[in-house]
């Protein structure tokens, strides 16, 4: 296990989680990394740690450069356990280390680990001299936790952005120009959609806060380090956090006997006829976290469920709960579905869409099995509303 040099005296010393596929419900089909960064200066400084089970890997990488007991400063940008999980063991080894974190970081770490470590609380705008270099701390509350903070190293023009601008992507490569950009951007998009979508305004605020900085590298806490495609990822974040959408529809549904699937196809035809890009996402074939990646820039969201037990199908309820939490803005919604006798599902879906403040198109409800004429009417009627 080797460290990877970012610049003279600055190293990636994180852990690679090749096998993780379920990140609190988010399907991480390409695994992930937890990035810790070591700075060798008059004060040996570590920025963030790794998930607890990758502690040994981090220590092995650090030990190739310096004895971990000699770490003077540890910066905790974020309390969440994939970045702080290495702290309990590390604080026992680096006995003299001071732990720099935001006020909410200190209270959060205490509430996680119940240890009275040598905390030093830093305010937004505070600077810490570590020898030839300085670390500047910028709080980014709710991008994506109250404690969230980024650390900027002006002498080397590196921004340690923590979860912002990260990607769940396990690779032995460490930089954005060593992996096809399409894969990295897709994973960055999926990360934003599933972790940050709800926090669009705090993200916009964080982007503004770092906007004036001269940046040659963005070193996030997951995935690859940006050094060649910085403007691409920053512009993408600006677009996503502004809730910019394109003429695109995502049709999300489940079906019991194929009728709701038929309605979905009739809806698809309406968008196709209008030249609007469509993505069909049956929930038995697509993970909800992949659906969210498509939702990020889609103007139209059409959600279909047949009525099962006087309710919507659990697959659709699960997706809608997730969608409501991530709360995309400026969207147009449509509820649809087939039913047998009571037909509650369509109204329940529509209520959930209204709860997310979407503009609502006229809902589509068909008893039992739609016939050809009925399907054509669905297409024609919907086209008129687009």
């Amino acid at each position, binding site marked *: 296990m080797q460290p990877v040099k970012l610049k003279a005296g600055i190293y990636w010393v994180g852990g690679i989680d090749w096998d993780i596929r379920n990140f609190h419900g988010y399907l991480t089909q390409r695994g992930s990394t937890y990035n810790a960064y070591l700075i060798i200066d008059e004060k040996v400084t570590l920025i963030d740690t790794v998930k607890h089970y990758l502690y040994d890997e981090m220590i092995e990488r650090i030990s190739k450069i310096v004895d971990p007991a000699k770490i003077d400063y540890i910066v905790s940008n974020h309390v969440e356990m994939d970045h702080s999980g290495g702290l309990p063991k590390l604080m026992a080894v680096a006995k003299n280390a001071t732990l720099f974190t935001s006020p*909410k970081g200190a209270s959060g770490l205490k509430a996680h680990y119940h240890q009275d470590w040598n905390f030093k609380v830093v305010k937004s705008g505070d600077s810490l001299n570590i020898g030839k270099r300085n670390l500047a701390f910028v*709080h980014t*509350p*709710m991008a994506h936790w*109250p404690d969230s903070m980024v650390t900027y190293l002006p002498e080397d023009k590196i921004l340690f952005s923590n979860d912002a601008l990260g990607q769940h992507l396990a690779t032995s490569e460490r930089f954005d120009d060593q992996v096809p950009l399409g894969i990295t951007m897709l994973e960055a998009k999926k990360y934003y959609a599933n972790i940050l979508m709800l*926090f669009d*305004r*705090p993200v916009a*605020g964080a982007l503004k806060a770092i906007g004036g900085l001269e940046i040659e590298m963005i070193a996030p806490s997951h995935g690859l380090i940006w050094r060649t495609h910085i403007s691409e990822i920053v512009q993408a974040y600006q677009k996503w956090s502004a809730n910019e959408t394109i003429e695109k529809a995502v049709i999300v549904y489940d079906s019991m006997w194929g009728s709701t699937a038929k309605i979905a196809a009739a809806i698809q035809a309406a968008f196709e006829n209008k030249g609007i890009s469509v993505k069909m996402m049956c929930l038995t074939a697509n993970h909800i976290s992949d659906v969210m990646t498509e939702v990020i820039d889609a103007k139209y969201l059409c959600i279909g469920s047949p009525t099962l037990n006087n309710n919507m199908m659990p697959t659709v309820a699960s997706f809608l709960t997730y969608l409501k939490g991530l709360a995309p803005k400026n969207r147009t919604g449509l509820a649809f579905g087939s039913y047998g006798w009571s037909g509650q599902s369509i109204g329940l879906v529509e209520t959930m869409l209204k709860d997310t403040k979407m503009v609502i198109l006229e809902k589509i409800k068909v008893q039992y099995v739609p016939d050809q004429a009925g399907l054509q009417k669905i297409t024609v009627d919907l086209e008129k509303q687009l």
Partner: protein
Amino acid sequence: MMFKKHRCTKCSFIYNSEIGYPDGNIAPGTLFEELPEYWVCPLCGAAKKFFKEVDTNMNKYRCTACGYIYDPMNGDPDAGINAGTSFGDLPDDWECPLCGVGKDFFEEVTE
């Protein structure tokens, strides 16, 4: 007639136009605007310009980032905000006690 209240930003003394300030020969019903320019805060002596109209909107406000609800009836004692302080009267640098975002992330609870 609605009687407005004005709070001294220096010492928090409240001038209530309904009561006036009889000890200082200000008759009940005297509007804040009608007080002479040389009038000063009876408690701390601050000039009239240091008074700010009391926001009487006692509605709750919700943090759009984390869902916390600011209720003027409770204030935010940990941040030194007394019960009875309207959202509008919170200082500009007040932050959500749960998640730390600023006042501009809050929206009025209307339902």
